[in-house]
């Protein structure tokens, strides 16, 4: 029963979240004016995250009536191979290209080549720094990714809902110090919690994305604050470590993770982990495709009728 309630709550929150946060700006009303040929270059298809993104892209392609080919390298680390793939894609004269770079810089040379040929490019998932691009005389049309500040805020919303008006003490387990996505999640969570009366972040400590360190850190925090009510971990690996600490101590503390890795989702179904804030890779792919279609819809030339001036 408890499990069912939790699951329902998670689903309800996900629904709420998708209405709240994602309603604006996902370009759902995009229509393709022509059956464009588009290439989507992902990192690898050996990882469920990218498989989901591929499925999102293909589903949206069908809806829009455009032709999409998805490319990916065999191994996530092979930046060189991805560069070659991108070159082949350019040679095959696609109308537009969406790409998720393996490193922030590995594709810069070919992005500028696509620019020269007038092919619009959209950056997915990990950002190619715009400054670096500009220095190399290149640009991307747009950038689509998960907003990690919002991820943290959603986790905070969940905790606030779950604990109710009574509130209580909460703790954050951070990733590697200085990692932008981890810091954004922490800040999103902490700032949202601070706005809520009755809630207090009593500890915010790093565990370097490491499960064992998260177990140790969470144990220390829980021993220090036996009245702790919730722990938010900036990824699922650490959430599972923190969950272990809670279970070792037999305490009643809710643990919320981030990413939605399979083990965490299983733990949610078992009613052990309260929730995990999952990214939506399929939507990232869909929005990327919509952006490209919009870019291609912009006419190359618009003739303005001249006016006949006469008496």
């Amino acid at each position, binding site marked *: 029963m408890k499990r069912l309630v939790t699951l329902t709550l998670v689903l309800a929150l996900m629904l709420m979240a998708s209405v709240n946060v994602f309603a604006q700006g996902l370009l759902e009303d995009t229509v393709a004016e022509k059956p464009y040929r588009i290439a989507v270059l992902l990192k690898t298809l*050996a*990882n469920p995250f990218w498989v989901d993104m591929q499925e999102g892209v293909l589903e949206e392609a069908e809806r829009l009536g455009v032709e999409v080919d998805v490319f990916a390298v065999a191994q996530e680390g092979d930046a060189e191979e991805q560069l070659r793939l991108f070159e082949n894609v350019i040679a095959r004269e696609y109308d537009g290209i969406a790409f998720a770079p393996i490193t922030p810089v590995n594709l810069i040379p070919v992005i500028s080549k696509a620019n020269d040929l007038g092919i619009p490019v959209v950056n997915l998932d990990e950002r190619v720094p715009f400054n670096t691009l500009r220095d190399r005389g290149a640009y991307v049309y747009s950038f689509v990714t998960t907003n990690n500040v919002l991820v943290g805020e959603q986790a905070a919303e969940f905790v606030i809902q779950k604990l109710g008006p009574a509130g209580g003490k909460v703790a954050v387990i*951070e990733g590697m*110090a*200085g990692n932008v996505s981890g810091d954004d999640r922490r800040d999103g969570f902490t700032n949202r919690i601070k706005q809520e009366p009755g809630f207090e972040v*009593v*500890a*915010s*400590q*790093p565990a*370097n*994305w*490491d*499960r*064992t360190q998260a*177990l*140790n*850190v969470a*144990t*220390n*925090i829980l*021993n*220090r604050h036996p009245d702790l009510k919730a722990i938010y971990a900036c990824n699922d*690996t650490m959430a*599972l*470590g923190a969950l*272990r600490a809670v279970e070792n101590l037999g305490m009643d503390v809710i643990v919320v993770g981030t990413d939605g*890795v*399979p*083990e965490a989702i299983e733990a949610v179904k078992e009613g052990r982990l309260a929730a995990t804030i999952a990214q939506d890779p399929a939507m990232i792919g869909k929005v990327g495709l919509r952006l490209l279609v919009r870019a291609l819809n912009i006419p190359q030339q618009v003739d303005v009728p001249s006016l006949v001036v006469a008496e």
Partner: protein
Amino acid sequence: MKKDLRYYWQRLGTLAIFVLLMIIMGIFSPQYFLSRNNIIQIFLQSSINVLIAIGVFFPILIAGIDLSVGSVLGLTGMVSALLMANGWDMWLALLVGGVLLGAFLGLLNGTLVVATKLHPFIITLGSNMIFRGLTLTISDARPVYNLPRQFSRTIAGYVGAIPVPVIIAISVAIIFAFVTKKTKLGRGIYALGGNEEAAWLSGINTKLLKVVVFVFSGLCAGMAGIVMTARMGAAEPLAGTGYESYAIASAIIGGTSFFGGIGNIFGVVVGALIIGLINNALNILNVQTYMQQIVMGLLIVGSVTLDRLLARGSKGE
């Protein structure tokens, strides 16, 4: 007088630093810090680092290094988990996938060091990447979980109030302290670390000993891998990444000389406990994340400097 201080400092200096830190933290932290429960936690949370630090102590003792211990820990933890997940008997899986595999990886390191005559820094820098890559490959970069419950209950359980990982770490420390102090092998390693040529001239098989120190290192990291997997009830493909730096810091804080020939197991264990103590205190005091690295760095540099200053007094005599 000076000689007395040096004599005691060499044996008990690290312990003095540990007690000093304990007192300082005790003053600044809430009462909870010095409770029995928290002190047991510090020992438990240090157990993995104690194990790999004891291992890495040996290559450092011969003026070498082992940078691969974090990956050995990751690979042994993963292989033992995979063996158990595939229905192997728990003890057999731990023996083969943890202890023997760890020793074997150490053997590889040691053999390469002797065969290539390259500095262990280079060999283990490379093998560190190779072992991590192997871990990612065999696990498909996914964690292995749903391990037999008996495993965590046995290896990460308690005997009375004492956690099993602490018992394992202390036992390993006692065995290796005995090896270093009381056996010909131990004396040979010190001699090799002090002066390789003299050791060779006095009939010590220096090549064999060079391999042995890496086997010890791998063996300890393998046991640490078992303990880590048991504590988590799961093996993570990236587990142990960067742990070599804590292990090396523990050995150095514990008075082991980078130039070889000087150091002892007791000091290394206390060095690892100091790191565990600092981490625990940082959490309890909720020290801000970015500050933590500064504090940790200062404490490492500070304690080693203090150690050297006090020990140097009569070095020239």
